[in-house]
């Protein structure tokens, strides 16, 4: 396997995980950017504990997820009733506080970053990453199609109506924030292991742009579009001619704007998934019938 193929497969999976982490709170109209700072915290936690304390991969992973969930728990209770603008701005601010702290703390490598995680063999790392993609994807799918998913739909439609129906919006929001942060931390640990370290510049406005573009391009209200959008968007910038590669951020930004203007529900929307599942069911019936 070439290095390009490895990075393509690995980053596609990491961005799928990150985009699912953003997708979950968005389902309930909660613009929660916690996965971004959780990814940053998770990556730094895994790198630091691996280099300084010699923790093995699985211990760093569990530690990072627990650490990020606890970190997100503190603001979660206050963020839950806020929603909308304040939630987005507060979580974005937390993201930049974490990034500034990483940049300025010498113990975390400061401006030079922190490198030196013992490398995992590429096939093993890919296996672990895609294993997590399957597990997280299954959980998100089950959540989407459970009574919680229907509650999220009700909140998205009208949160006042949802509250009247007896849905505890604040509690659900806290739960979503924590799940989302855990997935973000997972993405961060895998990211750090891919590079055998971490660098503060990886966590800035461009990461938010990538994450949001994948979510909006794929489709904000289904989990399936993300699976297509992540590899396509990451791959497109890699196969661009060398002269255009420097403009990948402009391309992402332009794509984001165009998608929002012409197809705000993304390439795969609810209607399409319903039609596809209806078609698949009909095909299955015909096959079984014949």
């Amino acid at each position: 396997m070439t290095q390009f193929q490895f990075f393509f497969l690995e980053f596609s999976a990491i961005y799928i995980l990150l985009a699912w982490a953003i997708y979950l709170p968005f389902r309930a109209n909660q613009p929660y950017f916690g996965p971004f700072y959780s990814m940053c915290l998770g990556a730094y936690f895994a790198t630091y504990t691996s280099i300084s304390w010699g923790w093995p991969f699985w211990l760093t992973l569990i530690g990072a997820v627990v650490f990020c969930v606890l970190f997100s728990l503190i603001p979660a209770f206050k963020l839950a009733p806020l929603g909308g603008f304040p939630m987005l701005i507060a979580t974005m601010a937390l993201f930049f506080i974490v990034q500034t702290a990483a940049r300025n703390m010498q113990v975390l490598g400061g401006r030079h970053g922190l490198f030196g995680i013992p490398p995992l063999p590429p096939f093993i790392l890919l296996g672990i990453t895609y294993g997590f993609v399957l597990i997280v994807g299954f959980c998100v799918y089950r959540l989407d199609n459970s009574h919680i998913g229907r509650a999220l739909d009700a909140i998205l439609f009208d949160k006042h109506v949802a509250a009247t129906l007896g849905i505890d919006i604040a509690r659900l929001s806290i739960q979503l924030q924590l799940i989302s942060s855990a997935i973000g931390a997972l993405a961060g640990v895998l990211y750090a292991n891919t590079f055998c370290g971490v660098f503060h510049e990886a966590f800035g406005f461009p990461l938010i742009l990538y994450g949001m573009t994948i979510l909006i391009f794929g489709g904000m209200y289904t989990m399936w579009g993300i699976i297509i959008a992540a590899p396509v968007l990451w791959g497109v910038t890699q196969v661009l001619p060398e002269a255009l590669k420097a403009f990948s951020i402009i391309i992402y930004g332009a794509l984001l704007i165009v998608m929002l203007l012409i197809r705000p529900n993304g390439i795969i929307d609810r209607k399409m998934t319903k039609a596809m599942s209806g078609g698949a069911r009909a095909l299955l019936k015909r096959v079984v019938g014949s």
Partner: protein
Amino acid sequence: MVVICYNLLILVTGILHLGYASLLVLSMYAAWFVLNATNNNLILGISAGIVSGIVIGTVTAPLFLPFIKRRAILEALVISLALGIISGDVMSHWFNLGLPIAFPSSLQMEGTTISWGLTIIRMGEVVTLVASIIIVFAFLYFLNRTKRGRILRAVAQDTEVARILGISVTKTAIFSFALAGLLGGLTAILFAMSTGTASSILGDSLVIKALAVLFLASIGNLRGGLICALILGVVESLAMGYLPGDWTNAIAFSVVVVILLFKPEGLFGEQH
């Protein structure tokens, strides 16, 4: 002035324009470009900064209109974020090989200083301060005493009632973008006069501080915004003086987080 522009856009269009500060810095780059091309002709350079501000504000307005009509705040915010990142990237690739730009010393009136005891102030800084005060008062006069200003305030107060009264909300939104662009262009020139340099990441730092002041004072409170800007300025200066490294942005963002979590209506806002 930056906070005033944010307030204007939020109240009239309902949009938190995260890319506005980057677009403002783009006006600084336009002024720098014309100054370079015209061998430091100040009148042309200043005009280019102001005109580019208005043009950028007006040209980007249609991107937001569908979302303003639908009150799709989140989508509009994402568009503004994308615009900010695109303009930052344009500045870092297409101007001055991505290096920070420097304005001519004549724009900052570097030769002339005012001495007062141990304090020495450059004339450029004095002009910036005086011009800022004049512009803010002129804007407040426009907002409170003219028909156009009253229309803006009516839309800001209640969009639906304003629509029933026959006010075109779309036209008012475009006008507010153009006005924010004009103020942005003027701010860009004053910024160039006082700092003398600009870089593609200046917008990020500006938006952080503007958001901090905006939420600290509560959205829409101009007087509170002025007081909070001063408080934040003092806190940042202390942080720069006493803390190692670059923690100023983290301090501004910490202010945002603490205020949003514990007093979401801001220091000068009313609890609803």
